[in-house]
């Protein structure tokens, strides 16, 4: 099977699974317990936290473990909004965020918050001028995703961070779920976003693990209350094996980043070039300077599902624009926001690469896709 749906989820690394198993076998005690086994589990957890903090250029106390990307995003959005609402109720985000931000925004709107949605240009990139215009005294939160999960547009996070910090007191949250381990992220005491969301299963760790990291001291209202774990900000017994597995996967991802990035860039350029041979029949949605590990394209007049099935017959797994919205019948909000031509709206496919993707697989995809196009356009009829 050629798996090209790594933005939906990734296959866990063998080493990461081994870590997960070993931690479950050896350090299963509750890290909050004061007996020796608990203390051991806690010191392992502390090491994992420390490792992630180092990879992110922050300190251990600024890293909280969550149950995944959606929780991290929800937590950041609601938590920062609640914490800051004595100063104002204005929030800025974009039209192309993941539903875990957009749905959270809707809910806050119903509670009386005022939300501005930035509109991306045809490359999926927001305008810093528009962001600047919309920032005001009452703005308490700006939430922008780093890399769009459906088409790979990269937002100018560093410039946005600088602008936000210079012109407002708003917290800046960045959904880095599709970018962590794929692109360098400027995040340190002096510069960068205030809050980052990271998900484990997008970087070959396990599903059900995530991180919310802070540049400085966590300033956020807790969401889960109870035993006071995670510095009182996220109660609930910490899933130590998931956390340690995530720390390991994060290290592997960051270490491999320079090498992987070169590969992704090469394949992405190769595929951009490849698709030109279909002329006006295929529209590549991903911008050429977008994230190299995501490539979205659309075939005129053909439904995405039909293409997925046809490729699947050839043992190639791709997805429609996003796994989260692929079961819905309406057009993706990202595609809508990009003003894609109607004839292309329903045929959007996404290829996304991961640590296990090989050059041969890219070639095999190209052959299969060429064959599928012929078949579906009736050229192969006997």
């Amino acid at each position: 099977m050629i798996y090209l749906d790594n933005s939906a989820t990734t296959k866990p690394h063998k080493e990461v699974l081994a870590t997960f198993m070993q931690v479950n076998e050896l350090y299963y005690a509750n890290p909050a317990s004061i007996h020796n086994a608990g203390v051991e589990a806690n010191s392992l957890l502390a090491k994992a936290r420390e490792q992630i903090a180092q990879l992110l250029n922050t300190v251990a106390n600024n890293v909280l473990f969550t149950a995944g990307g959606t929780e991290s995003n929800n937590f950041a959005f609601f938590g920062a909004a609640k914490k800051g609402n004595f100063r104002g109720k204005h929030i800025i985000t974009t039209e192309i965020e993941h539903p875990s931000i957009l749905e959270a925004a809707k809910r806050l709107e119903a509670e009386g918050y005022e939300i501005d949605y930035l509109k991306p240009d045809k490359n999926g990139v927001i305008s810093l001028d528009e962001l600047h215009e919309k920032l005001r005294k009452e703005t308490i939160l700006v939430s922008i995703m780093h890399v769009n999960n459906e088409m790979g547009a990269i937002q100018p996070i560093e410039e946005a961070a600088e602008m936000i910090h210079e012109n407002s007191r708003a917290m800046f949250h960045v959904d880095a779920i599709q970018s962590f381990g794929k692109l360098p992220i400027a995040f340190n005491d002096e510069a960068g976003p205030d809050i980052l969301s990271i998900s484990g299963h997008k970087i070959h760790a396990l599903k059900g693990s995530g991180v919310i990291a802070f540049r400085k001291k966590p300033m956020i209202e807790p969401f889960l209350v109870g035993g006071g774990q995670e510095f009182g900000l996220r109660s609930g017994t910490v899933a130590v094996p998931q956390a340690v597995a995530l720390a390991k996967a994060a290290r592997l991802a960051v270490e491999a980043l320079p090498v992987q990035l070169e590969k992704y860039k090469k394949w992405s350029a190769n595929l951009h070039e490849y698709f030109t041979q279909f002329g006006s029949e295929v529209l590549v949605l991903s911008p050429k300077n977008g994230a190299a590990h995501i490539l979205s394209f659309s075939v005129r007049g053909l439904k995405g599902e039909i293409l997925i099935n046809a490729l699947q017959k050839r043992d190639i797994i791709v997805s429609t624009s996003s796994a989260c919205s692929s079961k819905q019948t309406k057009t993706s909000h990202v595609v809508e926001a990009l003003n894609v031509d109607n004839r292309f709206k329903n045929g959007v496919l996404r290829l996304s690469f991961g640590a296990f993707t090989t050059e041969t697989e890219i070639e095999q995809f190209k052959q299969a896709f060429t064959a599928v196009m012929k078949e579906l356009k009736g050229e192969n009829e006997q």
Partner: protein
Amino acid sequence: MIFKEILVRYGELSTKGRNKKDFINRLRDNVRYSFNDIMPLKIRAERDRMFIVIENDEKFNVLMERLPHVFGIQSFSPVASCGKDLDEMKALALEILEDYRDVGDITFKVEVHRTDKAFPLNTHELQREMGATILPQFSNFSVQVKNPDVALRIEVREDAVYMMAQVIQGAGGMPVGSNGKSLLMLSGGIDSPVAGYLMMKRGVRIDAIHFFSPPYTSDNALQKVKELANGLTKFGANVRLIVIPFTELQVAVKDNVPDNMTMTSTRRMMMKVADKVREEVGALGIVTGESLGQVASQTLESLTAINDVTSTPILRPLIAADKLDIIKIAKEIGTYETSIQPFEDCCTVFTPASPKTKPRLDKVQHFESFTQFDELIERAVKNRETYIFPQKEVKEDKFADLL
């Protein structure tokens, strides 16, 4: 890695003459203790400066992080070197100054020291030549001769050319050990490590004593105290930790002294034990983390009753400090996180419901007089265990494969 060594300045020593040599040797040993984990270090101690050789990036980073904590160092500078060739010198100077490019407008000067008189350019010529090369490259630099923000110091010596730009403030004070030795009562709480730190800053070498009451207190509590003792070594000295088996004495107090006075009596026993140990290890004073009014045992009346057992100087550097200020120091010196780990210690196991905050000495003495505590004290002192820090952390490796 452009830096080859770190130059350490002792500064103006208050101890001159023959003591100076002791001072320097002490400081060199202390530097070795503080960097036990990145040994071996090549250190060359000269009459008025010390050089630590930088072998790799990792050592350099650790040195830069921890040298500011080592007492007895006035300032230090990373030093780069190159051959006695003008082009090489120019290239090196630009490389060193690269760090100052993005820091806004700064004032700058070149300082030249030429001990190799055979070098073709004299001091002024070299100064002008280097200045003329550097200034056009950095738009944010302007020359100022008095008190510039950055001074690039170039030393032309016999063997090579040495350059430095950064002067980092040290912790000052005296090398630990140059002012005698005291015994620190180390409980595992927030205060006592801070008290130890403040004494070390005055050049006092520290041995620590800890009272251990198994099974009422756990190995984790002891482990925590070991970590604290180890943590204090980064200020430039080894620390001996003496662990006293205290259960027997503590139970005897509980069984023989009225409930509301056990606290006072327990502290008196601790002080007696500590004083005996102090004598055996050759320390001159006892250091405690007591701070007036913090808990029942820290009222003037309590301190009087506890102090009664000895005439040894009891040094209490925190006696007038506010808790919040103590916490602030604990955080700065990195002991806070360890101190707040929640393990029962011997001071809290048998805490009575309402300890007397104003115990009367005669009464305490009266109740203690029915029991042969001296024998128990002898035994506790005899059965002590001693650990020497810095100790390499072995615990960490266990998790290395998992992460």
